[in-house]
């Protein structure tokens, strides 16, 4: 099917883009890589009078590091981020999530900010941002503000961004020391939406106890989730295999998993427990080596 008619705008600055959103209100939608929005328009699941293409906004491109954070401009293509050596060194969890997104053809167009702002619960990047306590930078004609990841994902395909706000960049905390990171998921085929997935990060202290642990889940609930019970069970622990398995089960037990045509909630919960167990085992091993 073809999309219903719309008007297309190609602003070159954030200010210009914000002005268009203020002018057109909820009749306008930000277009980034379009790898989710254009299918939804073609299927007529949604419709807008105006699309504001931000891929030509230079200040929304680029990857930079400062003050313990890595900032990724929202319009940075996923393929650019995937092959960025500074990103891989600073935020390995993000680097390991990127190859899981769609297919390489999708990542050539799709953007980091687009995936985050689209907020599909089965997407990898929202779970990574949530797990790492990333900070979202929103801009509008009213000014700019920061939104914590814990406040950002408000529902399926819904975020804390107002109709007139643009996600311009995301700051990911840089973890240092003896760390390990893993992103793992179950999908029917490579590139399909995950039926369940885990983004896990751990930092060990000098005595091999867990100093910091973060576990994000995607494809499980109606939003990206944190496995809070898993993190609480492991924080400060000297992790052996049994402790990791128990923690994974505790985290899975508190998940509100969703039923749909692809998988039952029960299946998702059991797979999530298994994936958390495997991912945490791997990241702890990586941190021990590191």
């Amino acid at each position, binding site marked *: 099917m073809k999309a219903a008619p719309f*008007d*297309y705008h190609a602003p070159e600055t954030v200010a210009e883009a914000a002005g268009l959103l203020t002018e057109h209100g909820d009749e306008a939608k930000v277009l980034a890589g379009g790898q989710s929005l*254009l*299918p939804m328009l073609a299927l007529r699941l949604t419709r807008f009078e105006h699309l504001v*293409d931000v*891929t030509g906004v230079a200040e929304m491109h680029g990857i930079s590091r400062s003050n313990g954070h890595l900032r990724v401009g929202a319009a940075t293509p996923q393929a650019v981020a995937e092959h960025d050596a500074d990103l891989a060194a600073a935020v390995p969890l993000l680097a390991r999530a990127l190859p899981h997104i769609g297919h*390489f*053809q*999708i990542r050539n*167009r799709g953007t980091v900010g687009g995936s985050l702002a689209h907020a599909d619960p089965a997407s990898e990047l929202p779970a990574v941002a949530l797990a790492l306590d990333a900070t979202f930078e929103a801009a509008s004609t009213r000014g700019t503000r920061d939104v914590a990841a814990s406040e950002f994902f408000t529902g399926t395909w819904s975020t804390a961004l107002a109709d007139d706000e643009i996600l311009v960049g995301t700051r990911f905390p840089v973890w240092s020391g003896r760390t390990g990171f893993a992103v793992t998921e179950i999908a029917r085929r490579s590139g399909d939406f995950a039926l369940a997935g885990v983004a896990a990060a751990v930092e060990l202290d000098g005595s091999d106890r867990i100093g910091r642990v973060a576990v994000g889940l995607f494809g499980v609930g109606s939003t990206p989730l944190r496995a809070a019970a898993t993190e609480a069970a492991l924080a400060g622990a000297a992790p052996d295999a049994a402790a990791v398995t128990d923690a994974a089960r505790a985290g899975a037990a508190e998940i509100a998993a969703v039923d749909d045509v692809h998988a039952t909630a029960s299946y998702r919960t059991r797979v999530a427990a298994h994936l958390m167990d495997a991912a945490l085992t791997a990241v702890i091993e990586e941190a021990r080596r590191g």
Partner: protein
Amino acid sequence: MAEHHVHCVVNGAKQRGIVESRTTLADFLREGLGLTGTHLACEHGVCGACTVLVDGKAVRACLMLAVQADGHEVTTVEGIASPDGTLSPVQQAFVDCHGLQCGFCTPGFVVSVTSFLEANPDPTEAEIREGISGNLCRCTGYQGIVEAVKLAAARMRDGAGVGQ
């Protein structure tokens, strides 16, 4: 209804057109420029039949607006063979390995595999299967396609060139 002027280079030749905002790059190539080698099946980014190169990178032409191609270079399956009609190593390998049956998905596979082998000239079979996962084929069961990618990679490593 907003219309836009598009100027781009397609298969090495300058092209221009006037498109609606909602016109996809795939529809512009097919209906505006008559380049019907770019096939459309699902029209929502799942099947990969419409894969083209934009500035050398493989993308789905149904998930890009024609107006977004303004100022860019596009290569379609019509631009993969040599100007004299000699098939590229990827195209020849698809012929030699029976990497197609009905042929509908083939343009997308040829473009995707051309791009994939540029980035990874010596892929494992697992990497090949991941590399072609963005293209669907309902005939072959993929065995002939995987063999074609292996053969094209081997021939190109032996110096046949990518063939664009």
